[in-house]
């Protein structure tokens, strides 16, 4: 996967085994030189742009946490007015917090206005930059520093917000989910996203060894298990036609979710000191229900 030219230079300050780093690298290398990257505040932004250095070999803009989509909209308009819009990609790399929560309004506005921007959400399922706090992308049952398990808590109490479906509900030209364990699938989707004339959105599951509590060399394995257990489904919707949602990675033999949960310390309270069969069972039941409902 190492490209001839790396547009995200080595020597940045992201953690070893960071899913976001890998996702960004795959994406920016696939998009190529004529790409402008926009990023809201978050792990990736602070670790790649420390003044006076930068890890970006393409133009890069950070403004704030909640407004990457609006800033990207401004870039799209400005390039059009300069007569320089042709053959250029505008790529947003946003965390789940900057997408699902604080950035959602700006994102919805950008979709609705139809800016030609590819918005990639690198989802590590919590506010990692501020030290692993829960957000609406955090899955049910997960430990974070603000969803700690305890006498009256099993960890995160709410299910994950279905962000890609919310994006697809805007009827934009292209929406997909992807993960770094299936690079070819991710790259294919990214190329489609960049080719459409309008907004596109890719929800990328990007595990975080520090926040999920797994060893950094297990990144790909954890990402793959998320797909193989049905926790994360790989699909795409083209031309805003939700009814034509296409599963891009079929999983004929789904593994039990326990196999995925066991790999990560953020779920360890579900196994020890007592095995929480009820909670794990509920997580499994939700996945089964999802597969049934969508005929997966």
């Amino acid at each position: 996967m190492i490209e001839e030219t790396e547009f995200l230079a080595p020597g940045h300050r992201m953690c070893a085994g960071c899913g976001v780093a890998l996702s960004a690298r795959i994406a920016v290398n696939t998009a190529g030189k004529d790409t402008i990257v926009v990023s809201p505040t978050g792990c990736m932004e602070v670790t790649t742009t420390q003044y006076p250095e930068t890890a970006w070999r393409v133009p890069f803009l950070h403004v704030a946490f909640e407004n990457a989509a609006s800033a990207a909209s401004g870039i799209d308009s400005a390039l059009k007015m300069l007569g320089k819009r042709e053959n250029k990609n505008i790529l947003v790399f946003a965390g789940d917090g900057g997408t699902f929560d604080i950035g959602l309004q700006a994102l919805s506005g950008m979709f609705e206005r139809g800016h030609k921007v590819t918005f990639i959400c690198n989802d590590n399922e919590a506010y990692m930059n501020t030290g692993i706090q829960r957000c609406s992308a955090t899955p049910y049952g997960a430990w974070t520093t603000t969803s700690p398990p305890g006498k009256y808590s099993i960890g995160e109490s709410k299910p994950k917000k279905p962000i890609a479906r919310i994006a697809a509900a805007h009827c934009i030209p292209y929406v997909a989910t992807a993960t770094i364990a299936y690079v070819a699938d991710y790259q294919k989707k990214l190329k489609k996203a960049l080719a459409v004339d309008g907004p596109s959105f890719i929800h990328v599951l990007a595990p975080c060894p520090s926040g999920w509590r797994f060893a950094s060399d297990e990144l790909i394995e954890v990402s793959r298990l998320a797909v193989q257990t049905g926790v994360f489904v790989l699909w795409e919707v083209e031309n805003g036609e939700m009814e034509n949602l296409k599963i891009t990675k079929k999983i004929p033999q789904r593994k039990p979710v326990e196999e995925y949960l066991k790999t990560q310390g953020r779920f360890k309270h579900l196994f020890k000191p007592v095995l929480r069969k009820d909670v794990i069972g509920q997580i499994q039941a939700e996945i089964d229900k999802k597969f049934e409902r969508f005929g997966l």
Partner: protein
Amino acid sequence: MAWRIIEGNQALAIGAKLCRPKVIASYPITPSTHVPETISEFVADGELKADFINVESEQSAISACIGAQATGVRTFTATASQGLALMHEMLYIASGMRLPIVIGCANRALSAPINIWCDHSDTMAERDAGWLQFYAENNQEALDLVLQAYKIAENKEVLLPGMVAIDAYTLTHTFERVDVPSQAEVDRFLPPYKPLYAFLDPEKPITQGSFGTPEHYMEFKYSQQKAMEASKEIIDQVFKEFDGKFKRRYHKIEKYKADDAEILLLTMGSMSGTAKDAVDRLREKGIKVGLAKFTVFRPFPAKELIEIAKRPKVLAVVDRNISLGHKGALFSDATSALASMERRPLTVNFIIGLGGRDISPQNFYEIVEKSEKILKKGKVEKELEWIGVKKEMIP
């Protein structure tokens, strides 16, 4: 040039159009809404070649302007009150990134209680944000200040964003005769925008909006302050050049019958017109009163104020805002500027016209009467006075 009868909002919109911004992003808010409406018509009719982004909030309006300006084009937006407050976080970012964006702001009170009428609390709350601030007395000034704001903001010694503030209703919705310059005249005054440092070009990739550690952050702020200081000179140059081209002379502080005044009113915005009228009447009665109007509030024209404050014995600072827990913003800044004077005049602060409470000549007669008492006694007993408050309504 052509005489036209227009409201203040149109003056801002026409001023902006004449500066040929390439991207405008805006969101409606009373009493500023006519600005984006007017500009969207210019764009729809092809009078202005620009992309008008109908964003979903003021926060996105300023964010889109930041994105566009960082790409390398001139931008404009307009707002008021809650809208400006919603932009707050990005205002600091725009100035920190040294993007010379210009905002047209209708001065409107801040909630609560929600109120759509005039006072200066909204822009005063942003006085530390690193933006140049200009306040108009009338619609002609509204238009002229937009042209000059761009020219000052984009100067390479400055590179700071600027806001042109006009009073809600008294200006935004009031029709006045305005001398509208021709496009050719403005083009000769304001050259096309060419970004010096801020662009997003794959042929020359740079990173904007970096992470600044304690090792570098202070230098960023120091350079912003230096730019503010440098802008003082540039403002004078641009005001002079404008006068040469358009025959209207602006000053950071405009004096009115101030040279021999014993009592000097310090004012801002549209109240200055009413105050000048009051000054005329009081002069007829032999009272030595004058006025100094702040057209520029940021950078704060301390040097000019000190010069003006040498002769009068009482400075009556009239603030259409209140920094709750202290005093009006103009008073705070004015008195701190005067602190270095060897013999400084007595200073008193009058709070007036909050939330659109009407400001009449009578208010200024009262202010001057109170100032005369101070003059006689030779001391200030009450530093903060509220004008026109119905104290009997407060339990």
